[in-house]
């Protein structure tokens, strides 16, 4: 069992680290000062949650690895994050939409985790759910502002939806590891969270005057370690310091 649990916790740990890193790329580059604060704040939430999750993965593995070994010293095929979180920032529309898609899934996920049976994950869920609720609200508001904004902002929002929507199906994917965890009551059933996610997205898209595309060509592979081209570039930046100066610490 612990092998299944380890692999499944690793999936969500990787989701949080990689999205946290992507969001942190905005630090110093956001379109206005307030968002230059909000982006690193959200990145901190995600990386903080990733740290708790990696620490638990290391504990489950029991081979003396630490959170840093998992974050900095694995090759791209060893990462199990979904593809959505590694997509490039592109512009502010892509960034807030990617964050909304992810947060709208994680909020009901953590809420459902409250009644699961793994004590460590339950503890993490109570903290994370408060933080992620903020992300849903903040990014939901931006999607509405931009979607129902100027002709240019609406066009960019529309482009972001077309580009990112195919990556949302992977959020609900259940591989064998996760299925075992769901069967044992350790993880919530991702597919049961789909109505909550769809309702959040539909509600926000209606206000944003955006159409929800049909899921025609879902893009998946991240859970098997098959990533997009952008991912290698992300990892080279994320891991640079530890690769160049092994063991460096603050």
């Amino acid at each position, binding site marked *: 069992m612990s092998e299944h649990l380890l692999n499944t916790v690793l999936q969500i740990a990787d989701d949080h680290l990689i999205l946290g890193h992507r969001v942190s790329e905005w630090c110093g580059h956001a379109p206005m000062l307030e968002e230059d604060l*909000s982006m690193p704040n959200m990145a*901190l939430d995600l990386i903080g*949650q990733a740290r708790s999750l990696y620490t638990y993965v290391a504990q489950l593995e029991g081979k003396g690895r630490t959170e840093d070994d998992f974050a900095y010293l694995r090759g791209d095929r060893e990462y199990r994050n979904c593809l959505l979180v590694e997509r490039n920032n592109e512009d502010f529309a892509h960034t807030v939409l990617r964050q909304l898609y992810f947060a709208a899934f994680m909020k009901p996920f953590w809420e459902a985790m409250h009644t699961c049976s793994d004590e460590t994950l339950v503890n993490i869920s109570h903290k994370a759910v*408060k933080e992620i609720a903020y992300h849903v609200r903040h990014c939901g508001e931006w999607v509405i502002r931009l979607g129902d904004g100027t002709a240019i902002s609406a066009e960019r929002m529309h482009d972001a939806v077309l580009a990112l929507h195919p990556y949302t199906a992977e959020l609900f994917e259940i591989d064998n590891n996760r299925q075992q965890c769901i069967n044992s009551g350790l993880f919530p059933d991702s597919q049961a969270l789909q109505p909550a996610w769809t309702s959040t997205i539909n509600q926000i898209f209606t206000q944003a005057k955006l159409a929800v595309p049909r899921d025609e060509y879902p893009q998946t592979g991240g859970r098997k370690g098959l990533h997009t081209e952008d991912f290698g570039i992300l990892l080279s930046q994320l891991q640079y310091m530890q690769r160049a100066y092994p063991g460096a610490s603050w």
Partner: protein
Amino acid sequence: MVTDINLAKARRIAAEVADPELPFLTVEDLGILREVSVEDDVIIARLTPTYSGCPAVSVIEKDVLNALTQAGFNARVVRSDMPPWTTSWITPEGIAKLQSNGISPPEPAGMSDALFATRVVACPRCQSEDTEKVSEFGSTPCKAQYRCNTCKEPFDHFKCH
């Protein structure tokens, strides 16, 4: 041997450690010092982190450990995640200190998840309720930025969490 008197002293020393970002607030004011106890003659200080990714958390843990060690105690700091910290643990003294340092304290009720929800946040300087939110996020994970339309001063608001 740690006596009851020593334990009380250790508790007092740990409680007086200040938050590095809000140095007028102690760990006791914030409500994050959950317990100081003795196990096998070692002082155990239990601290609950505020936000998952708050960089101040590890600094506070080190500061508490240093304060206890410098006072001659054999001490250990333990992170306690459950139950999760909430702003309702901030003590009345902490609330008063926030207010007098120009930070509007968190509202007691749970925050609404509704999009574009507006909350009445009073200006910590002139108490006017005619204020507006500038940014949902501020200089630390726990704060948002507001401005007062009456006295025209910007101020930080400690978010309800």
